[in-house]
């Protein structure tokens, strides 16, 4: 379980972006963070991953305090991150991308087994296994980024705008994949600009505004006046 308490964070010497954020992801949940541009959604994820300047508060995963840990050490706690914008190693092959996903894994047989599992789930990646990842289509690149994050069998998966820039069909596919992964017992914290799609697959949703949690709720959050105003124009 992930518990964020009284988080205050920004970037380097810049102003505070998050003021006092409390967020929780409980076992088995998909939780989404929605909100207007600049509300600090991505900053929440990047704070978990040690890529911001944390000024106050705590971020706990199960029993471990994450604040102050270097980014590269989080993977061993069972936390994987799918960053914004189809972030893959474009100059490396699809297979090498997956291998890098298991960088900290020493057991070579387990790596092979995991890659085999990934190929079964996403046959397209097997097909393009020896091609440079930059040759994949946008949707395929996002699948590869998710597959790479799954290589370490994470307990918690953080996703930053997984549908950004994808075709409706590819987006639909990605959201199905997210639900499948969750059914296998992986907690998921997802930041999305496509609020409706995110809320529909989530157990709970937080609305972030100006670096603060403005609202928390289930799928009925879409009916809230505040959310309507932000996402669906003036009522």
């Amino acid at each position, binding site marked *: 379980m992930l518990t964020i308490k009284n988080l205050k964070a920004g970037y380097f010497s810049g102003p505070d972006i998050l003021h006092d954020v409390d967020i929780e992801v409980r076992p088995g949940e998909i939780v989404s963070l929605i909100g207007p541009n600049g509300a600090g959604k991505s900053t929440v994820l990047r704070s978990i991953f040690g*890529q911001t300047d944390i000024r106050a508060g705590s971020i706990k995963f199960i029993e471990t305090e994450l604040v102050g840990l270097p*980014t590269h050490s989080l993977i061993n706690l069972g936390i994987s991150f799918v960053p914004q914008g189809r972030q893959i190693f474009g100059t*490396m092959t699809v297979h090498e991308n997956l*291998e890098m996903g298991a960088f900290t894994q020493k057991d070579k047989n387990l790596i092979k087994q995991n890659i085999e599992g990934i190929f079964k789930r996403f046959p397209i990646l097997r097909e393009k296994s020896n091609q440079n990842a930059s040759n994949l289509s946008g949707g395929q690149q996002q699948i590869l980024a998710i597959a790479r994050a799954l290589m370490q069998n994470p307990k918690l998966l953080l996703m930053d705008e997984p549908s950004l820039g994808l075709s409706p069909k590819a987006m639909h596919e990605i959201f199905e994949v997210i639900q499948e992964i969750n059914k296998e017992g992986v907690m998921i914290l997802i930041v999305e600009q496509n609020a409706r799609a995110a809320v529909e697959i989530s157990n709970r949703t937080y609305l972030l505004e100006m670096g603060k949690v403005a609202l928390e709720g289930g799928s009925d959050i879409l009916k809230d006046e505040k959310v309507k105003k932000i996402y669906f124009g003036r009522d």
Partner: protein
Amino acid sequence: MFYQILVNGLIAGAIYALVAAGFSLIYSTVKFVHFAHGGVIALSAYMLYLFYSMLGLPFWLAAIVAILSGSIFGVAIDYFIYRPLRKRRASPTIILVASVSVLLLLESFNLIFFGADVKSINFLDIGTGLTLGPVIITSLQIFIVASSISLLILLFAFMKYTKMGKAMRAVADNKSVAEIVGISSERIYTWSFALGSLIAGFAAVLIALEQNIEPTMGTALMIKGFTASIIGGVESVAGGVLGAFLLGLAENLGIWWLPSSYKDAIAFVILFIFLLFRPEGILGVKKSNK
């Protein structure tokens, strides 16, 4: 005559390729220009002089000491100069200035401890040329080309097939994702300096066998290595190697018509042409989507 020029270009290229490969390898991961790389080469050449000519160690042992000391110097420069700057989030420009300062410092060091006069190693006799058809080449030159190419092949295999090589490519490609999958970029930087400077040490030994050792040799070599990297594409080791052989050929073709003192000018002209019209190099990709 034409074949002789090709061969001379190949010999020059083999040396430039080692300079450029080490430089590009470091640049590809750390993303700043490590001009002091030339200083590491010069210092390693002096180490060979110190251990072989002055202290009388057997040549091969002295060569190994010189190569390893290259690696140690490179890692030390990173650890004591660049890393503190990175911690303070210094811009690549600041680090570039620091790197030029280190290069000048190393040259002064060479001057103080070994003097301004040129040194030579005199391990192999350079004079005896072998005639192979239309071409005259010394056995030392054959040795230089063969060992340079072998080392480059080893380097490519390392980058392609080992876990460390792949991790270096991953950091070179996308540092923040590399961190996310658990690769410590600081550790990879250290490895890049160790490996890149090991190649610098190797280059130093070959250069010391063929040419004189002098305090400012590092700057001269770095200009060639840097030009080669720009020609080929500074972000890739393969680009640097390709650029190095092209530069070697271009220089030697150029002095077919021009006096040989124009050699360095040819390199600069090529450097400017590429910086103006194709700054990403032959193998480079234009950065528009990042």
